[in-house]
């Protein structure tokens, strides 16, 4: 007779491809590389956090993504969020603005103000941020293809209101390489797009040294199908491409690296995400120190927003997304992020209402006020599991970065569509796994409601009136502004773009003359051309 066999435990592999054991001991930590990379918070290699006191000194900034309709409406929502305890702004722009079209462009019809705030000229920014103290509330602009223009507009608006732009803080997303991989708000071809990012880095390093001109986004690459390890590895490859461009211009690394920042995603397995952030922090520090020769600690910091989680939310049983959001916020807090934002429970359907946006804010405030998440830095450190997984995630990211280098680098792989094809193949496999129930999603492929009840989701209305109002506003500006000054600034912009000079000074002149986003984009398209999307499967 056979001896009774112990039931085999099912093998568990996390999304990044690392096996998760049922038990970790000190021997696992040792075997994975030991505690060498752990260190102290606030000191190299920063695994435990970029600041020593972290949230004890200052809790994370809360920066819900917001903006819709015209600048007046967005201004009201911004003020509502601030009145409810939000400590930063994260501005959503509509699609015409994001891809450099004016509101009266025929292609903009039906899209004005739909997924974000519509911006044509400096006047719109003056309205959008009216009454908001830009020293107290830092503003993050979620803008990429048209980022150079909108950064110029933001700096010009602040200057006009009397702020010293040398002291002005704020962030622009301005990560065009990830737009080619996912999200899709590109305008120009790959090479000139990178050059424009370089122009903003160089200009800000010299003129607005406290402004963060780039927030490199693993976030959307993850949403497009990347694993957590790929998310961070690809983001580092992209950040290196921007850093290389800045260095080619003769900028010393310590003059710009401290103003690079990151945007990462928070959905998925709690421990895998937290270890992703801990691993990433030390890997980025090591890259900046060893490969770029950075000396200032700030140049080695992985400053980030850990946010969103949209890819984890479900259409089914949307109220359960409130609970998912709470766990995602916990991941953010345990990860040692500087800034947090949460997708609201209705965001799989629509632009959040004031009500749902407030629930997201309260979720983050709960962690600060009731749950003790700000009391002690990096509370998971020293766990056999967490330290082993942090080491293994770091190794996995290094492997992925080496693969990218071996295949010709991230710029080439984005330009020819290799990365896009890879992450979309993974997204397809994931959808198959969700459809078949292999990858469990509560309410989707298990614990479904017999009958979906009427969802407590209130749809954000689209107002055709707003679009008309926006177009009229633009036409009024065109009639009132000094059109000779606009033409001169646009001519200078075209000349600088063609000659390979930094376009930011000309953009500053153009925005101050109330040139429109569409007019400035057209000048740049005339010089740079338009991106042609590679379709690869």
């Amino acid at each position, binding site marked *: 007779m056979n001896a009774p066999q112990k039931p085999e435990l099912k093998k568990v592999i996390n999304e990044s491809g690392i096996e998760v054991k049922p038990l970790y001991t000190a021997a696992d930590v040792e075997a994975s590389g030991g505690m060498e990379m752990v260190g102290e918070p606030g000191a190299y290699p920063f695994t435990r956090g970029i600041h020593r006191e972290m949230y004890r000194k200052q809790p994370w900034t809360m920066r819900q993504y917001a903006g819709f309709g015209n600048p007046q409406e967005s201004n009201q929502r911004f003020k509502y969020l601030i009145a409810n305890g939000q400590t930063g702004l994260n501005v959503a722009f509509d*699609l015409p603005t994001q891809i450099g079209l004016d509101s009266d462009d025929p292609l903009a019809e039906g899209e004005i103000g739909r997924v974000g705030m519509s911006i044509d000229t400096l006047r719109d920014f003056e309205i959008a941020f009216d009454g908001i103290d830009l020293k107290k509330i830092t503003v993050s602009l979620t803008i990429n293809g048209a980022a150079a223009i909108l950064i110029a507009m933001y700096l010009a608006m602040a200057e006009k209101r009397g702020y010293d732009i040398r002291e002005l803080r704020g962030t622009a997303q301005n990560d065009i390489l990830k*737009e080619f991989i996912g999200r899709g708000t*590109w305008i120009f071809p790959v090479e000139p797009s990178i050059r424009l990012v370089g122009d903003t880095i160089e200009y800000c390093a010299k003129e607005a040294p406290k402004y963060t001109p780039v927030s490199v986004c693993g976030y959307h690459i993850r949403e497009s*199908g990347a694993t957590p390890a790929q998310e961070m590895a690809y983001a580092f490859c992209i950040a290196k491409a921007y850093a290389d461009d800045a260095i080619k211009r003769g900028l010393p690394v310590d003059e710009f690296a401290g103003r690079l920042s990151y945007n990462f995603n928070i959905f998925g397995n709690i421990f895998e995400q937290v270890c992703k952030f801990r691993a990433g922090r030390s890997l980025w520090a090591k890259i900046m120190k060893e490969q770029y020769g950075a000396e200032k600690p700030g140049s080695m910091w992985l400053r980030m927003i850990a946010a969103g989680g949209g890819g984890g939310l479900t*259409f089914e049983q949307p109220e359960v997304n409130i609970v998912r959001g709470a766990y995602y916020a916990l991941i953010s807090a345990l990860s040692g992020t500087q800034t947090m934002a949460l997708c609201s429970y209705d965001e799989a359907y629509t632009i959040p209402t004031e009500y749902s946006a407030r629930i997201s804010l309260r979720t983050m405030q709960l962690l600060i006020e009731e749950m003790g998440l700000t009391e002690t830095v990096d509370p998971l450190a020293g766990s056999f599991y967490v330290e082993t997984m942090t080491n293994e995630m770091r190794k996995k990211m290094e492997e992925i970065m080496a693969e990218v280098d071996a295949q010709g680098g991230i710029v080439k792989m984005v330009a020819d569509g290799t990365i896009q094809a890879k992450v*979309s193949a993974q997204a397809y496999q994931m959808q198959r796994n969700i459809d078949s129930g292999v990858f469990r999603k509560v309410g989707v492929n298990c614990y479904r409601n017999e009958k979906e009840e009427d969802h407590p989701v209130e*749809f954000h209305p689209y107002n055709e009136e707003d679009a008309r109002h926006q177009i009229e506003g633009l036409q009024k500006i065109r009639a009132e502004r000094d059109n000779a000054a606009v033409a001169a600034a646009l001519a200078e912009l075209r000349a600088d773009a063609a000659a390979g000079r930094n376009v930011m000074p000309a953009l500053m002149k153009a925005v101050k003359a109330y040139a429109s986003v569409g007019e400035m984009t057209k000048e740049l398209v005339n010089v740079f051309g338009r991106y042609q*999307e590679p379709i690869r499967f």
Partner: protein
Amino acid sequence: MSTRPIKVLLGKPGLDGHDQGAKVVARAMMDAGFEVIYTGLRQTPEQIARIALEEDVDVISLSSMAGSHIPFCTKLKPLLEANGLTDKLWVIGGNLPAQDHDALRALGFKGIFPSGSKLDAITEYIRSHVK
């Protein structure tokens, strides 16, 4: 039924850049044996109608995530009609609130697949509805 594979145009209408869903569905259609013409981003109604005519597709499908499906389909319908494409199967998927489904059906879109639809449900629907 003819022996040629079902030919599907899969378009990304308007300015929306969220193409993860469209690419996933394109792969599902290819795995189902369909021939797929994926347009890439930022197609105008005119471009969709022209490609559908030139490629002689059996199915015209759209993936819309950013809320502009009604104005887009309102412009697309007369163009497809003018090109004599009313006998083709029109299908739409993406972020499509239930309250818009009747309007989409009235605009000629017989197959409506809101986010959360299973891939096999989409391909089976197409297989059983292509004339």
